[in-house]
């Protein structure tokens, strides 16, 4: 296992804490960037994978205006009373290589997310970075969720299912 290798083998998801305030996820897809970009930027395709249907957490709404300055809003939950919304703006959209967006539901400490799609011999190296405004915000994101660890550990699979 080498978390520093920025060219993982196909199908393997690698996470690195790149710096005090940045987490990076990489993965290779066996298709050119324009196809991976399409799957990411068309709402009807995006909603098929962002929270997989098999996990049983319905995506109630998925609005995405994927262009620079456009907004998005994702709403999960069983009904309107028990739902959770994620929203923000696309700061940069450069097809088929780069999308940058804000995560405004988390307030001032929210990460800025950047995903890039790089061509590698007909395949795509996808790199997703979550850059926090400070080391403290990044630690908080990690330790905050780790604080309730015993229960969370018990429900590892349920939590994964919920996408958190």
């Amino acid at each position: 296992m080498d978390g520093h290798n920025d060219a993982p083998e196909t199908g393997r998801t690698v996470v690195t804490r790149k710096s005090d305030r940045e987490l990076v996820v990489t993965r290779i897809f066996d298709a050119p960037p324009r196809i991976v970009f399409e799957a990411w930027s068309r709402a009807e395709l995006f909603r098929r994978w962002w929270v997989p249907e098999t996990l049983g957490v319905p995506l109630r709404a998925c609005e995405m205006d994927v262009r620079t300055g456009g907004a998005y809003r994702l709403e999960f939950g069983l009904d309107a009373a028990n739902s959770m919304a994620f929203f923000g703006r696309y700061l940069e959209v450069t097809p088929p290589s780069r999308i940058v967006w804000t995560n405004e539901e988390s307030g001032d400490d929210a990460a800025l997310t950047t995903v890039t799609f790089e061509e590698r011999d007909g395949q795509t190296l996808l790199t997703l970075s979550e850059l926090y405004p400070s080391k403290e915000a990044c630690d908080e994101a990690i330790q905050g969720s780790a604080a309730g660890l015993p229960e969370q550990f018990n429900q590892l699979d349920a939590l994964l299912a919920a996408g958190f």
Partner: protein
Amino acid sequence: MVQYVAARLDASFSALADATRRGVLEELERGEASITELANRFQMTLTGMKKHVAVLEEAGLVKTEKVGRVRTCRLGADGLAAEAAWIERYRRRWALRFDELDKVVEDLKREEEANGRT
């Protein structure tokens, strides 16, 4: 410093790749336990559990101390276990998503190939 932490976290990821070892950390979150107790709890031989604990100790996630004939295990003191566990969950969340994204990408590829042929 970041390099050092990253290297330790890499060892943590390997250590956490195993369900039993994640279970052991979960047990130790509740309090310390001897290797014998852990082996019983996970219905495993003493030798098998010793190996798992050794991997966790190597990664800095667990500390052990032998008092008399009993080796007691507890979580590493510096919060590394919690952070590593969080990052492993984070990784699995993305892995799960990306497995699904893979399927969508394959569908698009097939569609494109079919359209190219007609």
